[in-house]
């Protein structure tokens, strides 16, 4: 039990995030009203708002406040000073514990999905960079000409025309962000390949090796060279808005480089291994080899990178909220609470407790990552 404390802690956080409205709410769970009827106020009535007061008895959530509930009579109370608020209140009378509980949801979801996004992009990029073989890397000379020819029109149509069309018919920003680059790349490669098939013989049909590796390496170098904070801040500014989605995109799009480098290094290493080549010699196709042998072995380090990445994502997101560029300063997230604590130095509880929340989850993630790394330093065949 003691050994597994990081995972237990993470599970606790996850539970808190999922059950937040149940844990901190102004409406009760079970109540008996004046006529003796048993009702479930939280589940049956619209969430939020003032709790009905004419019950005979109420069994309620452990923290009977919503994060948005302002109470002018309990402004800036220290913990244990007022009997009602365990961790104190802020300058508007909102309960700190309730805000921390509800913030768990926002912070964890941003960190989790951002890390997932970074992981996807990173693994994808790492794999592409090491893609070898005759099918993928070799282009006919005529195809290269076509690629250069189609790049500008494809850029035009996928980034200038397509978004406009999508705005009308597919108003999902996430889908747009994904479709446009996909259309761009597809719009170049697919016609190039198809037209290239027309050329079977001759000088133009000769194959040239074009590896995506240097390109991806340069891309990684560039992304890494710009200080992360500035990049994120500029992304948040230009993607518009301070919503969960924007934060996920900003943090995910800047954090993929480490995972890409790792995946690439691992894939390069595994490709030289005997068991991998043996699988190829036995007649497995490349995708089978990758799936059954490369991926399980490459995943170990990648998973530790994901754990550390998520810890880092939480730190970045809470810092952004701290300076007001993440979630709006008014919303209750850990970072914005720390910001409030800094404005009002005498309310030390605003600085201590949200920070402890950040600290414990970061600690749990770091320890998990470290343990995972230690466990998986051996190869698995």
């Amino acid at each position: 039990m003691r050994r597994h404390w990081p995972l237990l802690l993470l599970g606790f956080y996850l539970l808190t995030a999922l059950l937040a409205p149940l844990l901190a709410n102004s409406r009760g769970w079970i109540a008996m009203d004046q006529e003796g009827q048993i009702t479930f106020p939280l589940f049956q009535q619209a969430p939020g708002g003032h709790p009905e007061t004419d019950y005979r008895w109420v069994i309620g959530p452990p923290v009977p406040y919503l994060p948005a509930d302002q109470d002018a009579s309990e402004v800036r109370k220290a913990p244990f000073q007022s009997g009602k608020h365990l961790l104190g209140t802020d300058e508007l009378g909102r309960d700190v514990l309730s805000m921390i509980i509800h913030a768990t949801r926002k912070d964890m979801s941003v960190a989790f999905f951002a890390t997932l996004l970074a992981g996807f992009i990173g693994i994808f990029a790492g794999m592409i960079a090491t893609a070898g073989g005759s099918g993928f890397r070799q282009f006919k000379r005529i195809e290269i000409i076509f690629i250069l020819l189609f790049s500008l029109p494809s850029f035009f149509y996928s980034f200038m025309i397509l978004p406009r069309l999508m705005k009308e018919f597919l108003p999902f920003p996430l889908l747009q962000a994904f479709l446009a680059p996909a259309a761009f790349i597809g719009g170049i490669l697919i016609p190039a390949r198809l037209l290239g098939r027309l050329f079977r013989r001759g000088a133009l049909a000769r194959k040239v090796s074009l590896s995506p590796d240097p390109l991806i390496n340069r891309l990684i170098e560039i992304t890494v060279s710009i200080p992360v904070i500035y990049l994120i801040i500029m992304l948040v500014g230009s993607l518009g808005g301070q919503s969960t989605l924007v934060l996920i995109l900003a943090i995910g799009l800047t954090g993929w480089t480490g995972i890409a480098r790792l995946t690439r290094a691992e894939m390069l290493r595994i490709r030289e291994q005997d068991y991998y080549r043996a699988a190829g010699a036995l007649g497995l196709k490349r995708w089978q080899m990758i799936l059954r042998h490369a991926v399980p072995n490459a995943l170990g380090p990648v998973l530790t990178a994901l754990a550390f990445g998520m810890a880092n994502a939480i730190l970045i997101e809470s810092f952004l909220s701290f300076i007001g560029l993440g979630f709006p300063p008014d919303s209750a997230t850990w970072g914005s609470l720390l910001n409030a604590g800094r404005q009002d130095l005498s309310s030390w509880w605003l600085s201590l407790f949200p920070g402890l929340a950040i600290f414990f989850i970061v600690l749990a993630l770091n320890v998990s990552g470290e343990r995972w790394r230690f466990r998986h330093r051996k190869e698995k065949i």
Partner: protein
Amino acid sequence: MLKYLARRLLYMIPTLVAITLLTFVISLHTPGDPAMLKLRNSEASGPGGAREFWPAYARERAKLNLDMPVFYFSLSRLALPDTFYRIAIPAHRKMLDNLCWEYGNWPQISKYYQRLKQAWLHPGEERDEMQDAALYHLLVASNARERVQWIKKLDRRRFGPVLEAWAELQSKARPWKNYIPSIHWHGRKNQYHYWLFGDGRENKGLLRGDLGRSFRSHRKVNEILSSAILVTLQISIFALLFAFLLSVPSGLFLAGRAGSFLDRSLSSLLFALYSTPAFWLGTLLIVFLGGGDFLNLFPPFGLGDISQRGFFDALLFRFWHLILPVFCLFYPAYTYLTRQMRNSALEEMQKPYVRALRARGIPLSRIRRKDIFINASLPHITLLGSFIPLIISGSVMIEVVFSLPGMGKTTLDALYARDYPVVFGAVLITSAFTVLGFLLSDILYHLADPRIQVKKEKA
């Protein structure tokens, strides 16, 4: 070796160019308009305010060199003209863009726009509020419904030309032009070029080291950033130097006693420290040790004014102000580096040559000094290279928490105010040093261990 160096330096150049382009592009898309922010007036809504605001805005824009195209060439639709960037007011641009999407015939749209502007600027003797409003809304309307609604309200008698142009626009519509790309060449008179090469007046251009002037204060960016760097250096040099120097003996000490209670507890402590966010610890230190209600040992903010003090007094005063920030920058680096050192030392100790040496009777302490220390320090040295950019760029977190006007905070404030020259300059400097830092760590790595061959990028 020299060839490798030369090649790496050569590779640096396109990377830097790409970085400048990337920064340029991203910051252009950040919302907020420097001209508008300067006039401290959000787009005056309504016909009344707009009459005064628009000309002033156009003038400000020209002053800031924003009325030029952004780059040497631009890619756009056939429906748009190549002089589209000249339209000064953003709301007008939006309206015209919308018109182009619908009708696609720029000559007619342009005629309509010119006549509309004429009518707006010279309303004549009779000033009818309804007509004013109609003209204003027609200038800024960005959807068809609004336009139709306001066009109907225009007085036929007074604004005949406008309506005539409008009819012509509708009759000669060519919306298909929107789906054909076109490239416009703008030549050297564009913002990027002026930024790089100077505008022939007082800005000498980036390539000669001139980073321009701030949009806000009109001070030279070079000046702003150099004073900011000075502040940052005061903090980061001490913090990182100590972190590096102290982590080596600490890591070795822990490695030497690996597995013992001391090692386990200290390592856990360091790990826990590593996991605390720096800005949180900084805030806590301020709250409990700074100007809060508790102990009042350290000043919470700022650098401290040393102009009135004697030399040693000033030194002490400044030191007193900087202790907390330096600590907050020091401890994450220190804990990380100590862990690194400990792990690499442990790895070294497992190696066969150590055992061989021990078997020959050489005492462990001498092995430690001569071999383990050197071999385990190698990764450390290369990490030095990657810490260099941090020294220059400072830590935004700490500077914000402690209100120190270093590189990080200056850049952040500039970003808030859309002060692009300052932002560009800072990002460029930091990126350049980052790339240099990587190069340096690579060089150090190869110098330190000649066994490691220069890796060629295999095709």
